[in-house]
């Protein structure tokens, strides 16, 4: 909490009706609220509920605010003022970043128990956030000043610090699991700061994923399969539990774009093996993401095209890995996923994003120009279930291809 107390000495004989003398004042902000047309109702990651309407309190509260570019911030603030003899009214103004300032307002002082209070009324900032540009203020400081002579002389008072997000356009409306989450605004505006084009925003937002370290607004890791058996498959569950499946990272990347008001339909791709091939009597329905080690071929006679066989019983995917009874294929440390160097790697399907013809796999932070590139770059094997409690595998990736099903997130 920043508790800014300024001591200043002033000569204010005019309104105190006394000889010139020194006075010590204590003037501090107690609460700041932002509002105005287009303010974004930012949601908590943990609950999907909106933040409270206050954005700053001297008790330590710090809550983010956001607007679409071109909007004008409005603010109101409460102050406390201690002084043996106070004037009836004072003038207040605030200076923000990028000369986005709050104009002088003259307000009455209200007497209280040993102190005076006053309210800086709802006032529009001197200028709007620059139109068409993503911005990220961390912090956006407001340097408050007060005057006892209606603006002729100004004294530095308190400073309040804020987190402000500015999106290129008004965010897309909340639907289903897409909410205006704090982390979505944080990652999107921080990465795309200064961008003015859709392609620039997509490119910069993508950079959040390329180092395989995706953090939430608090700096906590968002894990891709921290536990192998996580069943979290929605963005709210990723943000709340910080551990989730591939669906959620694709949704997060798409959300970073949507929050900027960029409408890109058909952006969410579900990939799974095509069912056209039926080796040894059943359809290919699994794939192994690198890296797996292959040993003996237990089924080289029974199913030569899918000779590696793993067997299991019951729930073979535990929190810490795969528990097979017998295993010709064994999981190795794999391709890095978000905050995890050995995520789950045995799947029926996977989700990625598609923008302007390019496939973005946000789980691993890699891009593909063609669907067919995925199997050759990222997969070690195809799998098929030929009998209950077992899977057979082949490392011959030419035996199948992926099918994509496209929806709009």
């Amino acid at each position: 909490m920043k508790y800014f107390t300024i001591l200043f000495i002033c000569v204010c004989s005019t309104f105190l009706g006394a000889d010139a003398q020194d006075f010590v004042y204590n003037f501090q902000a107690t609460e700041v609220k932002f509002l105005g047309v287009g303010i974004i109702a930012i949601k908590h990651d943990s609950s999907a509920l909106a933040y409270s309407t206050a954005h700053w309190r001297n008790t330590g509260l710090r809550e983010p605010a956001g607007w679409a570019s071109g909007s004008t911030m409005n603010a109101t603030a409460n102050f406390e003022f201690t002084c043996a003899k106070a004037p009836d009214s004072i003038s207040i103004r605030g200076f923000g970043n990028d000369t986005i300032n709050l104009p002088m307002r003259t307000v009455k002082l209200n007497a209280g128990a040993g102190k005076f209070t006053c309210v800086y009324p709802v006032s529009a900032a001197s200028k709007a956030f620059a139109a068409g540009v993503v911005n990220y203020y961390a912090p956006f400081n407001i340097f408050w000043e007060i005057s006892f002579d209606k603006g002729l002389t100004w004294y530095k008072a308190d400073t309040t610090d804020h987190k402000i997000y500015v999106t290129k356009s008004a965010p897309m409306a909340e639907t289903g699991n897409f909410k205006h989450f704090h982390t979505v605004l944080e990652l999107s505006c921080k990465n795309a700061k200064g961008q003015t084009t859709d392609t620039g925003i997509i490119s910069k937002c993508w950079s959040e994923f390329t180092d395989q370290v995706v953090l939430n607004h608090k700096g906590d890791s968002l894990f891709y399969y921290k536990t192998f058996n996580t069943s979290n498959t929605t963005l709210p569950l990723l943000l709340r539990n910080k551990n989730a499946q591939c669906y959620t990272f694709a949704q997060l990347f798409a959300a970073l774009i949507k929050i900027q008001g960029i409408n890109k339909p058909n952006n969410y791709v579900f990939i799974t093996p095509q069912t056209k091939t039926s080796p040894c009597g059943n359809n290919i329905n699994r794939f192994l993401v690198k890296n797996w080690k292959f040993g003996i071929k237990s089924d080289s006679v029974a199913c030569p095209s899918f000779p590696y066989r793993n067997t299991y019983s019951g729930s073979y995917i535990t929190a810490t890995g795969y528990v097979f009874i017998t295993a010709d294929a064994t999981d190795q440390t794999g391709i890095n996923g978000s905050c995890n160097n050995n995520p789950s790697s045995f799947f029926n399907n996977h989700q990625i994003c598609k923008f302007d013809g390019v496939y973005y796999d946000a789980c691993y932070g890699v891009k593909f120009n063609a669907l067919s590139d995925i199997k050759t770059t990222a997969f070690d094997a195809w799998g098929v279930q030929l009998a209950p409690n077992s899977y057979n595998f082949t490392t011959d990736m030419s035996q199948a291809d992926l099918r994509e099903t496209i929806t709009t997130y």
Partner: protein
Amino acid sequence: MNTRFYSLFCLVFSIVLLSQNTMAQLKIERKIIIENEQYYFFTIDEETQLATLHTGSVKDKIINARKFQMPIGRELNNEFNPLCFDINNGQFIGINWILNSMNSRYEALKIITLKDWLKPHPEWTNEDWAQVSFNQPTFAPNEPWERMLDENNVLENCYFDMVKTEVPSMAICNKGKLYYWEYRNDKWINLWSVFTNVNSFSLVKRCNTSGFYFIGGNGDIMIYSEKDSMLLALGNVFHPKEQLRKNILAADLANGCLLIIDKDYNKTYTIASQTIVAEQFNSLNKIINESALKINL
């Protein structure tokens, strides 16, 4: 005395609050099926995607339903497509549409004997239940889904439903095209497809004759006309007495309705979802008599 009264008041108040909470949470999936004087319906957990079976005698209060976790469920993303299922001779037949990287949509058509799942498994985590659901027997490959994707792999207003009468039947629509399939002799047969503006729907067997009709999420009832090769909206399908009740309940029905499929008496009803929620202290029989609308088809 005052203390005892206060304690009693608090206890009663807590019970009332708890009951209201339980009632408010009851979001029934698509329909209630009656078979052998027992009713069956499902609710879905909004995090795990797993289904809970609620069952009991049609003569008992709904609030007293026995509840069982089931190895089945549906996804929470995208468009809202309620759980697709039927109950036939004590067997669940339906579509396990849990969103999970290990759940195959091609193998999602499941058949489960309900009595096998009446024993609780407290040792299983939600993740275990999900894995078990993927491993349930598949009664047929999901060819209707695959063939629809062959035509158009971009999903938009994609909905589907399945029922089991003489044979399993499945209807699926995407981007305004509705396909109807039946599974005969171990093979899916696409009997017809038609362009229509239907969105969400349920597939319902006709009571008075063979064939099926479609009841949309908005309550519209449609039937496929082979002669015209199109889906026709039907007008009044209610008895005059029922029509009066429908008018009275119009606002409630508009907020969401459920189907009640009575296989014992070969009758189908529609009822406002909120009526079931509000009337849980009554039996299903009483609720049907007082608040359901019989569909004469």
